[in-house]
């Protein structure tokens, strides 16, 4: 039996919010997430949506890259109007590098997991760092392989406990330390639960020229959020030490607030935006490489999760700079630019006669 009901007329739609390039938030969203409810990765996706929307970046300029894993699925869940590439396990760095070689004008965001980056992918990760490939590299770090059901990854801390009770005995690979040592020009750590810090860091990365690396502790609620895990929400909340209070002022906005001398440092980023770092408990100079290394060592010793901008170096040549390529995307240069003329071939032939 079925009854027909006449629906009431829809209420008038509220005026939609538009960003500075006139887009709603919708094109910045992605498909519905298929990750577990409560997964840290979902919060990171939300931050990405928010940041791109707020900065008013044209979605079509963006290339979303990833490897394989729960984390690597997430590019499907944000920026539906950007091209995405969910490649193979651990090898997103090379794919992203290739994409930027083809089109240096792409804004590339690479999202990966700790297994994807630090286990199978550590080789490509390290060489991408050396090359200072200009992209934003986000590690959604939960210390386990989520998608294959919770085995330890190479970022699992020594002594951290698996759900089954097994204790990790191997020392962790600290991806931020690797980033600092190997050539990333912006290195930060954050926590999926810290909306403001993470958004600010992501915006800073998007204003930076060069490789920016953000290691985001992103708890896996299904396999690594229990007591004994050092990547649980509770553990990270208890052990997080933020290095700075961060504020980002985009280049297209006027700087209004005066900065307090001594306490806050203002850094002008590559695109003219500003990052303001307000000192918290300790003195920290993120342009000092050794200090950054030392701080990470100390934090590891104390079991602290150090968050904030760990390191930044401005002005270093990126891979693209070193290659000295033309301004337009190589991939779509017209034949006239990429096919030398008959006389060029004839000259070569003549030499070989």
């Amino acid at each position, binding site marked *: 039996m079925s009854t027909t009901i006449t629906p009431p007329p829809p209420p008038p739609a509220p005026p939609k919010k538009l960003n500075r390039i006139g887009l709603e938030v919708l094109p910045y969203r992605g498909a519905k997430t298929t990750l577990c409810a409560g997964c840290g990765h979902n919060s990171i996706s939300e931050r990405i949506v928010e940041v791109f929307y707020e900065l008013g970046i044209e979605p079509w300029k963006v290339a979303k890259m990833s490897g394989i894993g729960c984390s690597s699925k997430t*590019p499907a869940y944000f920026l539906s109007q950007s091209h995405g590439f969910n490649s193979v396990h651990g090898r997103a760095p*090379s794919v992203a590098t290739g*994409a930027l*070689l083809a*089109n240096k004008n792409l804004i590339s965001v690479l999202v990966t997991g700790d297994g994807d980056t630090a286990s199978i992918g550590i*080789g490509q990760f390290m060489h991408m760092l050396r090359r200072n490939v200009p992209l934003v590299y986000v590690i959604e770090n939960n210390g386990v392989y989520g998608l294959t059901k919770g085995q330890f990854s190479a970022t699992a801390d020594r002594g951290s406990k698996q759900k089954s009770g097994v204790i990790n005995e191997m020392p962790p690979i600290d991806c931020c330390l690797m980033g600092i040592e190997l050539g990333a020009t912006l290195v930060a750590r954050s926590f999926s639960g810290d909306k403001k810090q993470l958004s600010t860091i992501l915006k800073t990365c998007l204003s930076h020229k060069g490789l920016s690396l953000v290691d985001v502790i992103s708890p896996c609620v299904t396999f690594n959020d229990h007591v004994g895990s050092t990547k649980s929400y509770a553990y990270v909340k208890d052990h997080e030490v933020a290095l700075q209070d961060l504020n980002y002022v985009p280049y297209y906005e006027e700087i209004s607030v005066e900065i307090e001398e001594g306490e806050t440092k203002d850094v002008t980023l590559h695109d003219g935006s500003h990052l303001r770092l307000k000192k918290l408990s300790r003195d920290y100079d993120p342009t000092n490489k050794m200090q950054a290394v030392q701080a990470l060592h100390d934090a590891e010793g104390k079991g602290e999760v150090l968050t904030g901008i760990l390191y930044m170096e401005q002005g270093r040549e990126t891979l693209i700079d070193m290659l000295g390529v*033309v301004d337009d995307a190589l991939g779509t240069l017209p034949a006239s630019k*990429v096919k030398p003329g008959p006389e060029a*071939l004839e000259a070569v032939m003549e030499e070989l006669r």
Partner: protein
Amino acid sequence: MSTLEVSPASSEAGHQHYRVVNDFSIQVGTVNGSGSQTANNVLMRSIFQMGIPVSGKNLFPSNIAGLPTWFTIRANKNGWIARKKEIDFLVAMNPETAREDVLKLEAGAAVVYDEPLKLNELRQDLHFYPVPFDKLVVPVCPEVKLRKLVRNMIYDGVVGHLLNIDFEEIHKALFKQFGPKKAKAADLNWGAVQAGRKFAEEQLKKTDPFSVERMNETAGKIIIDGNSAAALGCIFAGVTVVTWYPITPSSSLVETMIGYLRRLRTDKETGKATYAVVQAEDELAAIGMVVGASWAGARAMTSTSGPGISLMAEFVGLGYYADIPAVIFDVQRVGPSTGLPTRTMQGDVLKNALLSHGDTRHPVLFPSSPQECFEMAADAFDLAEGFQTPVFVNTDLDLGMNNWMSDPFAYPQREPKRGKVLDAAALDKVQEFARYRDVDGDGVAYRTLPGTPHPKAAYFTRGSGHNEKAQYTEREDDYIKNVDRLSRKFASMVAVVPKPEGEINPKAKIGIVYYGTSRYAVAESRDQLVREYGIETSHLRLKAYPFTPELLDFIARHDRVYVVEQNRDGQLLALMRLDYEPAVVAKLRSIRYYGGMPLDARTVTAEFAQQEGL
């Protein structure tokens, strides 16, 4: 057994009973890293400049310096430039191998050798020419350190005299080899050539029958190796992204390309590069970058050899399944594993066609000459972008690293075919963009490039299950539909890949099918078969997998068909077995050589004769 068109050699060597003109092989045995490469190239080039068809093959060890190395030159008036198994003229400079080299010669061969080696004591049936290299080098090269290198140039003088090579040509070849910037070194070396010549004129009595005489078969031709030709081919095909990881024998493909790119592809207006070359950390990264670059619209390629192919498997599977172009040059060497890195083989034919887990199939091109290396680079890019899939170009060490004479390359008139790419304007016109929809029925769907300023442009690429709209799916029907499309796409390539070349001889009952560098040995072997056994054969040289109808037709027209290849397992034949009806396969026979040397005609003829019961 010798193929000279003259009366057989007298068993007592020592007198010049007859003349063998423009038909012999020279082998120079030296030590790797002793700079003999220059002397050998000058020798080869001067014969070339005299208008005589010639080939040169470097048989070198997987070593930088100190191990034995050989260089074989073949001069042949009929144009047979395959490696000749029998050596007619040996230059024995390396004490380590000289004895064995001499013992392997057939009676009547000539031997120029370093006097202290006393090789003349070994045999009576050869023509021996002792040369005191160490003594001769002293006056021409005061600098002791350089003597090891200059010493080799002396044999060019000796051999030049003995073979009656025009010294003008040697001079020209030598200065060409050194180039204008190294004129001083050239002078020094020219002195050594002259010392050798003088010594030979004064001290050696010519008793062997071999000599050259000017012909006119090489006018206008060039000398080039296959790797350089492929490099030029890529450049003129508009390559924009090149990635690589060094590996013998493929390294020189990209290394040469880098040089030419700087010269030919620097944007005139801005002085900037219209290309990017990246030395990757390994082959996984090299192919990963190619996949990423191709996805983003570049004509991207990499070059490698066997071990690199194994490492590229996963990404090639991704390219196949997610419809991403990629061009991979495989300069084949002897496998499996590290194998013999400096020996040649057609060992990756089957492997490349099937690379990666799951149901995959990839097109493979088979260049046989520098010219085809040049042309097939464009074919490969057109195919890769046209069909959005990885494409292999299977060249080999013999073709890639040896110097070949060649007609100069014709300027490619064809414009690059960039395939089905929708730009913003095109997107405006389509109602819906579905990345994997087979709109045209050929299995090839339309794609867009990242960075296309259009709200409809974006799609999501993945190596996991995807439906027509590039959405994630695990549905049975979506999966089947998609992989059936990929099968259809592979079938569509048949119409486009380079067609085989050959000749159907109406008198022939037997056909010969071959590909790549087997070309030269097969041509000569067919001639031997006619002259020695009176057997006429048809022949067909394949240029590509998937096979085109010409092959089936060729087989249909013959009683039996020999498939000649340079690997143990008959890898091309295996592909034919996979693709053809049993009735067709029943006609196929296999001639295989897998010793790692460039294929020679004798081996083919002997195997043919044996299988035919001749």
